């Protein structure tokens, strides 16, 4: 019973290839002989070419809840024997995180008043088995192919045998108030800012394109050049844009709450595929993708200043106050409220160190625009 089904799927692949172009001669003969086999086959084929039922299918998709369905399946497949001890491991991690939170709250907060502190190196690593491992600056961690110390997660260089295996992925999530550095298996270094998530292969394959995905947040890439890596290109997928590089330094800022995605080139050259176009960036230029109009523009700027967050400096260059406060809120993990909405658009210019106390920063900002601020628990109110 399986055999005819496999044949059907192969026929479907041939039809798809024919529609997209790129059917080989041999495949073309295969498709024709299937068509000639029965009149019914020809009828199926012509209904597909007409798009019979295609639009109806698209209409229906929103009726199916992918996320909810996965939540229902997940406990069932994790109940399988091989996952038992890993499940407990996950609880243990969760429990220890809770304990840590409770402990820090107690130490920092003996008088039930929250103190707002600057961020520190921390991250959560999601392994191929779906385990979550909490990484911190002082905590050492190591596993096959990977180790973490001093705020850097480093993957081993590609081993010779690895190209035979399938590519497997890890995820690294940086919480608000966190930052971390990642060294991939080709030596490429990635600085990750607060509130960021990235997906990457544990081991790149030699000679194959190197692909990573920035799911959200901000990341600075220093890519090992293709020449040093068997000529294979490096590409970053992020929110509808794909960026292809041959060895270079660049920064992508792509937070869901921001109105634009910004890609800044520091050194080298990159090719960005976006909205059906290819754009080549030169150093000290920035591609801005406006999410509302789904259009983009390229501007010139000082790329080093724009990406100074990775050197421990905030450089606000004529930015609206709302954007400035969003950066502050991610690093200090606080919420920000504006008493007067028009304040959001006032432009601010200034440089701060990231280890400064939040009061210093807020004082400087509010004085420069003749207003005041107030901190209520974990919320900053701009008057």
């Amino acid at each position: 019973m399986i055999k005819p089904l496999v044949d059907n799927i192969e026929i479907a692949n041939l039809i798809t290839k024919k529609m997209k172009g790129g059917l080989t001669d041999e495949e073309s003969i295969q498709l024709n002989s299937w068509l000639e086999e029965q009149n019914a086959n020809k009828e199926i084929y012509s209904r597909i070419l007409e798009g019979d039922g295609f639009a109806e299918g698209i209409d229906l998709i929103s009726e199916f809840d992918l996320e909810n369905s996965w939540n229902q399946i997940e406990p069932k497949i994790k109940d399988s024997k091989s996952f038992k001890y890993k499940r407990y491991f996950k609880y243990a991690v969760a429990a220890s995180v809770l304990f840590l939170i409770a402990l820090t709250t107690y130490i920092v907060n003996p008088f039930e008043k929250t103190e707002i502190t600057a961020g520190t190196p921390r991250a959560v690593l999601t392994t191929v088995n779906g385990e979550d491992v909490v990484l911190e600056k002082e905590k050492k961690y190591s596993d096959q192919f990977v180790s973490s110390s001093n705020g850097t997660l480093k993957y081993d260089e590609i081993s010779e045998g690895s190209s035979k295996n399938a590519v497997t992925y890890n995820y690294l999530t940086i919480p608000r108030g966190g930052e971390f550095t990642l060294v991939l298996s080709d030596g490429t270094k990635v600085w990750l800012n607060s509130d960021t998530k990235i997906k990457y292969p544990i081991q790149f394959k030699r000679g194959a394109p190197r692909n990573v995905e920035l799911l959200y947040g901000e990341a600075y890439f220093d890519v090992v050049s293709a020449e040093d890596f068997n000529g294979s290109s490096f590409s970053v997928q992020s929110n509808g844009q794909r960026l292809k590089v041959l060895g270079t330094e660049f920064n992508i800022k792509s937070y869901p709450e921001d109105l634009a995605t910004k890609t800044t080139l520091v050194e080298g050259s990159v090719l960005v595929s976006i909205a059906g176009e290819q754009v080549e960036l030169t150093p000290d230029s920035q591609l801005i993708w406006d999410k509302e109009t789904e259009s983009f523009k390229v501007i010139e700027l000082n790329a080093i200043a724009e990406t100074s967050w990775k050197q421990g400096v905030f450089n606000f260059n004529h930015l609206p106050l709302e954007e400035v406060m969003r950066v502050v809120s991610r690093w200090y993990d606080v919420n920000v409220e504006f008493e007067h909405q028009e304040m959001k658009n006032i432009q601010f210019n200034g440089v701060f160190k990231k280890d400064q106390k939040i009061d210093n920063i807020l004082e400087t900002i509010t004085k420069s625009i003749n207003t005041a601020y107030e901190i209520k628990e974990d919320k900053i109110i701009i008057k």
Partner: protein
Amino acid sequence: MKLNDGIVSEISNGNYLAFKSLFDNFFTSLCLFSSQIVKSNVAAQDIAQEALIAYWKRKSDFEELIKVKAFLYITTKNLSLNYLKKNQKVAPVEVYTLANDKTIQELIIKEEVYASLREEIDRLPPRTRKVLQLALQGMKNPEIALQLNVSVNTVKTLKKNAYAEIRKALGGDSFVFLLLFSE
């Protein structure tokens, strides 16, 4: 992630994230396939979940993606026909027609081809994609503009973006193309 045999061998070793990405890629197709048999979206969703769990339980039996797909379709088909029998939704004669190889064959081939065309649409930026989906439902530009709270000119620009992209991916004479841009 693009599905391939590599992912199937990862799943057979118990790799849970690999299974998740197969789920993400294939769940909707199984729902759509089943819903055409059972005519109930809720039931179709339950059946698709059950079929995927059945595969996970037998994961070590499979090495090739195409065999996994065949297994999932056949399991979904059987579960769907059982559902119809159990709920007596249709007369037995109709169940017989549905079980007919040719009908099922057409549903499978269609879903496989259409899923791969939908992938091209999914690659578009979100607002461009939304405009296309509304156009596919037969909406005219002014209606789309009203629905999305943008100007008619913005709708035209977004359609133009989509036009270029789809043309690149599928060529100018595919039906998707014709459906979208017949005014």
